[in-house]
């Protein structure tokens, strides 16, 4: 398989996605520092290649489950940046109408079943999604992102095993960024590689350089093809590193400055740009143009988010979907529980620069 760096179209798309993720999270970091964002954030700066490479291996109608560190997955699966930013800014125009925040952004129309505040929470859900896609007779695939920390959870074991015995079309992508909050992966497992766990389920496991977007793409593509052709799940381990702390409370007491710097030197974006330049696929000017477009798209998203309307106060109307036979559940004053798609689309189409690949049908 040729490297993504040798095709101008691929290179542009990959860089647009990675730069958009980077710029988006830098903007989030800055908004937080300025006191304009509430709550907490889990940034994936430094991990852009795994989200980008894995999602590039998917079709628009494939589905993903994501994690608390999910901005990158969301963007790589084609989310609207304006609605993402509006959600972080707790507006009604946000993906979750300001009720979910960073840890719960989903875009069902793009096949993103959602970030998740519970470590490993999305893994069984991806397996169920894979089951549905199989029962429905489709050739769609479910891909589950999770971190190294999630592999210590029982949910990981139960879910991977279930997908294995049922040959479900699921791809498990472990983004091994070396730390579950402060606990290093070496401290929580006797195994050298997370991918070694695959043997326990009788499925293939592969470890790749998670900062090499082409390597991630290649491994994910093979796993997706395997899933799509009915051969069952694969565990892909993408070894990477988060530059920022676990969340906003992190003081980096468990790792050294030298370690962080050594990984910053392995910047996945810089590496890919270097490969693109060496292959003469794109010029320096063309790279700059991609960067500028990502910066502008994020700037527009911040503006769109900040001007979004405040959220509805009728929280009880958002707890239950309206039922045809249930006479008593409160679902608001007869109004639909969710705003019409047209209302929500008013935020602005900035997803193109984020690597969106057209409208996907709902899974």
């Amino acid at each position, binding site marked *: 398989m040729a490297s993504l760096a040798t095709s101008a179209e691929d290179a542009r798309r990959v860089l647009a996605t990675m730069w958009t993720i980077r710029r988006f999270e830098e903007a989030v970091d800055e908004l937080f520092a300025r006191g304009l964002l509430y709550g907490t954030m889990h940034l994936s700066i430094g991990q852009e290649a795994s989200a980008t490479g894995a999602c590039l291996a998917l079709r628009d109608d494939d*589905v993903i489950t994501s994690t608390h560190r999910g901005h990158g997955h969301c963007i790589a699966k084609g989310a609207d940046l304006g609605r993402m930013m509006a959600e972080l800014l707790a507006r009604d125009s946000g993906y979750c109408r*300001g009720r979910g925040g960073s840890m719960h952004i*989903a875009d069902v129309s793009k096949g993103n079943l959602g970030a998740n505040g519970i470590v490993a929470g999305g893994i069984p859900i991806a397996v169920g*999604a894979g089951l549905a896609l199989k029962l429905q007779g489709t050739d769609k695939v479910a891909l589950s992102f999770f971190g190294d920390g999630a592999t210590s959870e029982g949910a990981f074991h139960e879910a991977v095993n*279930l997908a294995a015995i049922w040959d479900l079309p699921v791809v498990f992508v472990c983004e091994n960024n070396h730390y579950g909050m402060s606990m290093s992966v070496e401290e929580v497992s006797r195994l050298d590689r997370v991918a070694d766990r695959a043997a326990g389920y009788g499925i293939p496991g592969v470890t790749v350089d998670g900062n090499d977007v082409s390597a991630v793409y290649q491994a994910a593509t093979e796993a997706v093809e395997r899933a799509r052709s009915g051969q069952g799940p694969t565990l892909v381990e993408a070894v990477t590193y988060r530059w920022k702390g676990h969340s906003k409370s992190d003081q980096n007491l468990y790792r050294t400055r030298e370690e962080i710097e050594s990984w910053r030197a392995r910047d996945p974006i810089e590496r890919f740009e270097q490969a693109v330049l060496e292959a003469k696929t794109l010029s320096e000017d063309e790279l700059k143009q991609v960067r500028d477009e990502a910066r502008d798209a994020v700037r527009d998203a911040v503006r769109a988010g900040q001007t979004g309307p405040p959220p509805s106060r009728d929280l009880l109307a958002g707890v*239950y979907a309206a039922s045809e036979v249930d*006479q*008593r559940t409160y679902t608001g004053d007869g109004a639909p*529980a969710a705003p019409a798609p047209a209302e929500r689309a008013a935020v602005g189409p900035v997803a193109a620069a984020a690597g969106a690949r057209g409208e996907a049908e709902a899974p």
Partner: protein
Amino acid sequence: MTTTSTPAEVETMTFAEAVRAALTEAMEADERVFILGEDIGVYGGAFGVTTGMLDRFGEARIRDTPIAEEAIMGAAVGAALCGMRPVAEMQFSDFTAHAMDQLVNQAAKVYFMLGGAISVPLVVRLPFGSGTGAAAQHSQSQEAWYAHTPGLKVVMPSNPADAKGLLHAAIADPNPVVFMEHKVLYRSASGPVPATADPIPLGVAAVPREGGDLTMVATGIMVSRALAAATELAASGIEATVVDPRTLKPLDETTILERVRATGRALLVQEAPRTAGFTAEIAAAIAESDTLYHLLAPVRRLSGLDAPIPYNPELEKASVPQVPDIVQAARELMEAG
């Protein structure tokens, strides 16, 4: 096995058969409906509820799983998010503890947390309750856990007809529904069940008996015990109304309060332990409304002991309300005012 294919309008069947009839009809009517759980295939389920369904629907839709409750629940959530209508069986309600993350943190919250973008049409069937000698880890009544979680609906039928109609409503519901089936009722409860697949709306209480002296609000298996107690009380001239909420969430407070106001006496009966039990919610609803001013005596609760269910059959019986306990509590309530 009795189904809609039989021409009779009403058939007599057990509680377990009624649940199976609803599952069968729903699966015949809607190919999105499938069942997953432990030993539900060849074995027919630990309580025989899915007996014969594997032959009828095949392995794809009657899915035997490993002993992995979190994966069962999570797979059901994921399938529901992708357009299916899964019915997950927890072999014993107690085992839901293994699956609480997927039920409480995922299924219950997705619709709200995602701003209404998608809901989780999921039914979780829970065989629950004491009376089978299965001791503390196989006998609990944990309805309060679920009722206390916004986003879940909680259904607790007390007879075969309600089991069938309410299960139809639960499967049709776009939200996650916890469907609680008392294990003792599976075979002991038998009665007329409509042959049609009509749902009984969630959130509507039933009043299986009317009487002017006191109102018993009983849940699950306690409904039949309350009715038996009412018959005994009638022999000594005390006439009781019995209200069966049928669904705990949403709760038909209107009917309950109306019936309590009518008699001025409320006896609330549940199998679950007393502290923070569901009937405390009913007592609070009475206290918080003008129904309070209609009371002739303080509200009386009759619950299971605040103790795990014991193995010894005599002690097991003694730890949850029985008919004589209800009769005695009713008499005391009559004497109290």
